[in-house]
């Protein structure tokens, strides 16, 4: 499958916490501008490890990661951010002892001094709650607001690619819908979004393309509709979500 304007290109990546025991065994994925790529798979498939390795948090054994054509394999995590690759961890993804405003200001420190205020103001437009609660320690936010803050914090640097590790975990269905609606807005602004999810149905509803990983390897890939049309595959790997509920939210 050809992807228009591939922004993130991951080529046969092998990665894991221990050098001798990789968890990701040669996965390749591509992400284009303005699309939401969902990575699915059973527990232990290496989905989280894959995006942590791309973000520079898990050692890469071999393979290549290119962002906008530039090789960024095994760069330190803080350097990835500067190059436009943002990552939102699943848990502990905001600084709970810092205020909401300081969480945003911290991320804005990577920008030129003149841009910081404007960029934070843009986030306040996208996430109005964060402006109202600017002086609150982030630890006092609700689960959904925390997730919004984590996304806003990672968007401050205007990344080309935004990767999220199970943003729906622990949130109510209504809040998941809110978060995912924001992800669609972010996609529409031209950012490539990578989503690792257990909540298959909600994720598929906003997916442009889907990769299914099994045991650290690519198993399937295709557009949402391609996968949905094969009921056997859907039943096997997508937990029946497509069969039961279709692609609607």
């Amino acid at each position: 499958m050809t992807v228009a304007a591939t922004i993130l290109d991951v080529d046969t990546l092998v990665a894991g916490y221990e050098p001798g025991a990789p968890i990701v065994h040669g996965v390749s994925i591509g992400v284009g501008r303005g699309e939401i790529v969902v990575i699915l798979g059973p527990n232990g498939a290496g989905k989280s490890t894959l995006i942590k390795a791309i973000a520079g948090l898990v050692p890469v054994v071999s393979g290549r990661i290119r962002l906008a054509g530039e090789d960024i394999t095994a760069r330190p995590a803080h350097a990835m951010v500067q190059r436009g690759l943002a990552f939102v961890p699943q848990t502990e993804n905001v600084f709970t002892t810092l205020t909401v405003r300081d969480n945003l200001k911290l991320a804005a420190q990577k920008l030129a001094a003149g841009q910081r205020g404007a960029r934070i103001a843009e986030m306040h437009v996208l996430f109005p709650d964060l402006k109202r609660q600017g002086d609150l320690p982030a630890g006092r936010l609700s689960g959904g607001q925390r997730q919004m803050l984590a996304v806003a914090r990672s968007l401050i640097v205007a990344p080309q690619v935004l990767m999220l590790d199970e943003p729906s975990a622990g949130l109510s269905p209504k809040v998941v819908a809110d978060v995912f609606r924001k992800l669609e807005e972010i996609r529409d602004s031209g950012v490539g979004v990578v989503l690792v999810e257990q909540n298959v149905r909600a994720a598929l509803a906003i997916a442009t393309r889907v990769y299914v990983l099994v045991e650290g390897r690519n198993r399937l890939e295709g557009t949402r509709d391609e996968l949905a049309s094969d009921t056997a595959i859907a039943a096997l790997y997508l937990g029946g979500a497509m069969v039961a509920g279709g692609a609607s939210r």
Partner: protein
Amino acid sequence: MTLQFLADGLIAGSAIALGAAGVTLTYSIMRFANFAQGEFISWGCYLTLLIAGPIGAGFASSVDAIGPLSVGWNVVLAGVLAMALTGVLAIALDAILFRPLRERGATITAVMASFGASMALRALLEVLFSSHPFYLSRELQMAIPVAPGIRVTPDQMVLVGFAAGLIACLHLLLTRTGIGRALRAVGENPALARVAGIDVGRVILLTWFLVGALACASGVMMGMVMQIRPTMGSDILLPLFAAAILGGVGSVPGALVGGLIVGLAEATTVELLGSQWRAAVAFVVLISVLLIRPTGLLGRAP
């Protein structure tokens, strides 16, 4: 009985506060109780002594006492240079010893290693300088009465002001600047800090530099009011930890409050019960805090 012991306690407490600020920084940013903190204090003081001599020899006029103080510009300049050098010493010790252990996740081993580093650094001072005492100043100063029964020397007034100023600067750095925000972020969650674009390695270097420089300032304060010996730092290690925990680990204003309370408590105990009880004071403070208010006076609940 005069109230002189209050002034003495305040001065000792200021020196303890500077060292305790270092303990609190190391712990809140690296989750690491550094027992070599006392040796940074001793080394800072000896480095000041070592640098002040050649400056005084090279620029004879720099030895002349500044105004009413007992020391000249050579000691002030040496103190500033020694603060930077002690910061570098702390960075070097981290690079050689603590960082490799931290990267392997051996936190407890690193704490034990800091005991070893403490002994090695102290022994090195004894080898280089012997255990014979030195003095930064041998001038006798007229103490000025400031309250009934309390007299302080000009040196002591300047030192207390200097300590309070340093603590205030550190507090502003942590709470009002981008650097401080990065330091606090690394203290809370180093992995997330990396994802947020912070170079955690550089933040840790900066932390060690600040810790070393503060310890040196504490050492210079002690060296101005008492004998300089290789054991001077290890002797106040327990008061440092008592002060940091009393104030609330992670809180710089807490380190100041804790340091002053421990200093005053020691001086009061010596005045009322005798000097043999001095060493027990820090223990009593430490145990009381742990029993009554484990988060410390200005600390946050975890």
